[in-house]
């Protein structure tokens, strides 16, 4: 009789994070804690106070006289030892890590001081005299796109540096046949992630090899490693980039630290000393990165019974002064799923990139999602009003159905799985929708401004590296290398004394990758999670990595987890093969449980993994391990099969697509404009949940970012391009006291494209919350135009008032 050996299933369990004790005890090694080169000089960066100006002269003599100063490097000197950063756009924009002759945003580096410590460096930086000749400024996307505007980059004829149009299905026919066409304009403001830890870089140029050793709290994508090496003019293999064990958060923004890796490496080269730099909060808010501001024109065509027949989207993304890679990716990350959760085949899109005299943009949690769903979901709510339908009913009439999965969206996304209708049903239950309706009716009867908002979003995860080439025409793409990758590389080894080390390059910034990796490996090998040591930090000179590695597009639970699972499964196979002769059963039948290989039918016949590993290491011939060239250490690559964009510009821009439905009840204080979120409910379908505790934390964090963008956060500039929100007094991310009561539920429709059935889920609420809260405030005030962020002063100005 076969016996059952109880094997705990770690995947899916709410295992507390293995990372946390280190953090709680203060034992983490963040960028500013590591000191691999104790003699490194400390850099301070001199930044432009002008949004657009010609540098007339730089006088560093006073700074050089300050005791403790090692040297000063100017942008022109940096330019002499760097090449422009490469870009997917074929336009003559010369972007370097420091400005050589023209500054194009406030905060752009113009010189670097290196001194024995940061205090001296800052003292000396104040003594550098830079003479500027101010130039005309274009401080917002609309005026920058004006053909009459001053052009920022010599060699270009317009600040609109990319202009692509796409057509899928027959949108013209859809609009011809429509009973209702809704046209609206939207502006998604610049908001930003604000991690606790800012950028940090240590760089050392080796004059003998011409190579660079660098440490930075970089988060990937590792495409940018190649971009950095190209700017440094060195072979990519000569740029060894390492990340510290811990990172104090990123949410996308630390992708752009690569620019400072190049800056510091160039400074190190010019001064002949290793250099380190820790960005301060002022620098971070001023000049690190942010989400794009996007201006969107939406036209939506509906039949009389509320079917969405066609969509036209005109998108204008302000990427700041330069097109810093991976921009203009914000425009294209969502391209395949621009139709959101709705079943509509006819889509016309115009995607334009405009440069302005503002800091360059980049990755930011949600990346392209908030910019899409705020216009799309507002348009649906407005259309419902015009059609005389309940918003919820209009959404239900247009949601992609479960039977349509896998669903081929108009622009090429293949929604892998999901039951959107069920999610909405469960949302109403989780939110107590009937209670909310009754509350709203009662409150309104007494004159209170109470509103309900709904938003439904498709959350892509695991980006197809090829999507960015949609910025090129099919003909341009055909001249280059086809791109479609998303892979991760995992090395796994069984130690001679038992225990496993697993290594990959997901560069976690607090997400809990080590916990989930340990869960996956423990399940595959019959171990406890604590038997698994996880190294997820980067070392391009030693760690396994792929061009698509890193921590972005919510790729961990989709592709990195798949790669870990694959590597652990391959290792399990080798362990079984080694154990089978000793157990006297077929390799396939060997059960791995309790840190041992076991005979399937006889619990007394087992051999511990420690013994198996010891034998293979110490006595390969005797144990039969000598015949296995791979041994008990292996490296494996996993990639979800995706295609490059096709000749018709269709692209499955991500590997997996989750779904989120949100409902919010808000009350607006008629006197003060303060928006109070009385209830927020959200239901996810992100496939199989690998760790519910971590998933819940991701959801809450994503929602906090979305709520901030909805109600509080905007980087504002004046007409001269000065940042008005340069400190945390003025740039106001939510804190715990601003978060509303949240009700959350996850339903699990496993993804067919990942072996564990999981998808990403860390960005969805960042995409949905601004749309949901905007809909709720619009409902509360009975108005259509609700610009973000919905700050008290702005909302106060929107409250309809009786004429005095």
């Amino acid at each position, binding site marked *: 009789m076969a016996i059952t050996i109880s094997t705990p299933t770690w995947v899916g369990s709410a295992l507390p994070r293995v990372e946390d004790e280190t953090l709680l005890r203060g034992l983490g090694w963040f960028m500013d804690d590591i000191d691999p080169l104790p003699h490194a000089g400390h850099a301070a960066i001199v930044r432009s106070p002008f949004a657009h100006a010609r540098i007339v002269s730089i006088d560093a003599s006073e700074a050089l006289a300050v005791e403790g100063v090692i040297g000063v490097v100017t942008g022109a000197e940096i330019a002499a030892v760097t090449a422009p950063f490469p870009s997917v756009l074929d336009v003559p924009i010369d972007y370097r890590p420091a400005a050589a002759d023209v500054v194009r945003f406030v905060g752009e580096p113009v010189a670097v001081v290196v001194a024995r410590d940061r205090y001296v460096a*800052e003292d000396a930086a*104040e003594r550098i005299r830079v003479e500027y000749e101010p130039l005309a400024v274009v401080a917002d996307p609309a005026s920058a796109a004006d053909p009459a505007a001053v052009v920022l980059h010599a060699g270009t004829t317009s600040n609109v540096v990319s202009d692509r149009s796409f057509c899928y299905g027959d949108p013209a026919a859809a609009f011809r046949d429509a009973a209702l066409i809704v046209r609206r304009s939207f502006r998604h403001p610049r908001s930003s992630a604000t991690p606790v830890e800012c950028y940090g870089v240590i760089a050392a140029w080796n004059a003998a090899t011409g190579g660079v050793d660098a440490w930075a709290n970089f988060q990937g994508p590792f495409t940018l490693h190649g971009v950095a090496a190209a700017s440094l003019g060195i072979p990519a293999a000569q740029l060894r980039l390492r990340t510290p064990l811990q990172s104090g958060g990123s949410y996308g923004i630390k992708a752009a630290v690569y620019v400072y890796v190049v800056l510091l490496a160039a400074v190190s080269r010019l001064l002949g000393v290793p250099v380190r730099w820790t960005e301060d909060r002022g620098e971070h808010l001023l000049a690190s990165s942010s989400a794009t501001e996007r201006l969107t024109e939406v036209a939506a065509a509906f039949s009389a019974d509320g079917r969405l027949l066609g969509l036209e989207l005109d998108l204008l993304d302000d990427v700041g002064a330069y097109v810093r890679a991976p921009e203009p990716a914000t425009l294209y990350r969502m391209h395949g799923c621009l139709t959101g959760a709705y079943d509509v085949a006819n889509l016309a899109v115009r995607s334009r990139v405009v440069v302005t005299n503002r800091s360059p943009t980049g990755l930011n949690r949600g990346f392209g999602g908030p910019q899409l769903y705020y216009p799309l979901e507002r348009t649906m709510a407005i259309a419902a009003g015009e059609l005389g339908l309940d918003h919820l009913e209009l959404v239900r009439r247009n949601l992609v159905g479960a039977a349509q999965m896998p669903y081929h969206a108009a622009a090429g996304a293949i929604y892998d799985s999901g039951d959107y209708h069920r999610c909405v049903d469960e949302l109403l239950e989780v939110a107590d929708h009937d209670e909310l309706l009754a509350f709203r009716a009662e409150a309104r009867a007494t004159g209170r401004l109470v509103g309900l908002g709904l938003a439904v979003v498709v959350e892509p995860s695991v980006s197809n590296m090829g999507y960015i080439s949609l910025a090129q025409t099919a003909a341009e793409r055909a001249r280059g290398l086809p791109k479609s990758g998303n892979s991760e590389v995992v090395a796994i080894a069984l130690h001679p004394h038992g225990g496993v080390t697993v290594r990959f390059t997901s560069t976690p910034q607090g997400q809990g990758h080590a916990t989930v990796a340990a869960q996956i490996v423990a399940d595959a090998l019959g171990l406890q999670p604590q038997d698994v040591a996880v190294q997820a930090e980067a070392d391009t000179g030693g760690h396994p990595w792929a061009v698509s590695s890193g921590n972005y597009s919510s790729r961990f639970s989709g592709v990195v987890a798949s790669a870990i699972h694959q590597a652990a499964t391959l290792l399990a196979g080798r362990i079984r093969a080694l154990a089978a002769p000793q157990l006297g059963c077929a390799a396939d039948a060997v059960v791995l449980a309790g840190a041992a290989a076991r005979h399937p039918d006889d619990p007394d016949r087992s051999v511990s993994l420690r013994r198996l590993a010891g034998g293979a290491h110490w006595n390969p011939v005797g144990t039969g391990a000598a015949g296995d060239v791979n041994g008990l250490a292996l490296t494996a690559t996993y990639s979800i099969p995706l295609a490059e964009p096709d000749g018709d510009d269709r692209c499955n821009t991500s590997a997996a697509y989750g779904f989120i439905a949100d409902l919010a009840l808000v009350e607006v204080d008629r006197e003060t404009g303060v928006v109070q979120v009385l209830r927020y409910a959200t239901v996810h379908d992100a496939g199989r949940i690998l760790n519910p505790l971590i998933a819940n934390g991701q959801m809450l964090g994503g929602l906090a970012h979305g709520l901030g963008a909805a109600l*509080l956060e905007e980087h504002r500039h004046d007409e001269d391009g000065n940042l008005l929100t340069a400190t945390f007094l003025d740039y106001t991310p939510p804190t715990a006291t601003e978060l509303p009561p949240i009700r959350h539920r996850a339903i699990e429709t496993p993804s067919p494209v990942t072996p564990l059935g999981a998808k990403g889920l860390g960005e969805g609420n960042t995409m949905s919350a601004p749309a949901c809260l905007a809909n709720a405030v619009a409902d509360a005030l009975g108005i259509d135009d609700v610009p973000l962020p919905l700050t008290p002063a702005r909302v106060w100005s929107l409250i309809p008032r009786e004429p005095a």
Partner: protein
Amino acid sequence: MKPAPLRYVRPQSVAEACAALHAEPEAKVIAGGQSLMPLLNFRLAVPEVLVDLAGIPGLRGIVVAEDSVEVGAMTTQRALERDADALAACPLLALALPHVGHTTTRNRGTVGGSIAHADAAAELPCVLACLDGSVIVAGQGASRQQAAAGLFVTHLTSALAADEVLTAVRFPVLADSWRFAFHEVTQRHGDYAMTMIACAADVVAGRIVEVRIAAGAIADRPLRLTEAEQAVVAGVELGEVRRIAEASIEPSGSPHAPAAYRRALVGALVVRCLEQVLAA
């Protein structure tokens, strides 16, 4: 974001502190540092000498007397917030202190530091102005008492001379018939207010017979809304009091809070405060 070079002195007595300030015209007193340190780090304040009061004995402590709550200048805001006797004697403090920054900043931020810093958007100066409180000031000669009226001169500027040190703050204790309210509107809890109103009212038989209304964050110093106060005591109805309050000020604007919005907040919060004291 590092302070410019400076010298740091840590006097052992108030007299030593005053002497140090007298000797160094470009000196600055540091107490809890919760407002000053960011200004130093941004190099917006560049003193040559920092005179730290932390080493001076006797500047911490709360004395609840019949007519006042006297708070030593170096008493932390948190210590005052946790002193039940002080809060019972001066209930407006209980209403206002939770709005002062965050718990963690109140753990270090001092009552005297907040008053001496004279930030027009800070809660404690507004409370002191509302209550007609006073401060004790030590200088080269004998120490003196300075009334709240006249203490706050303009943005970050008090009536203290450069070589004077604020040693204690006196919050008056009012009769049992007084009621209190404090309201402010912020972007987030703990932020600088866009507008705040502190209100103390002597309510007899459901009628306000005396009232003090102070507004913060609308001018370069906390303002007493005397016209509104007079109107309330004269029995003017609340809607009209609101209009009088709004008309009596000329608020400055900021990107977060344009002037018209601040003016409307003043009216709304004054009414809110008065409704609250009348309902109490």
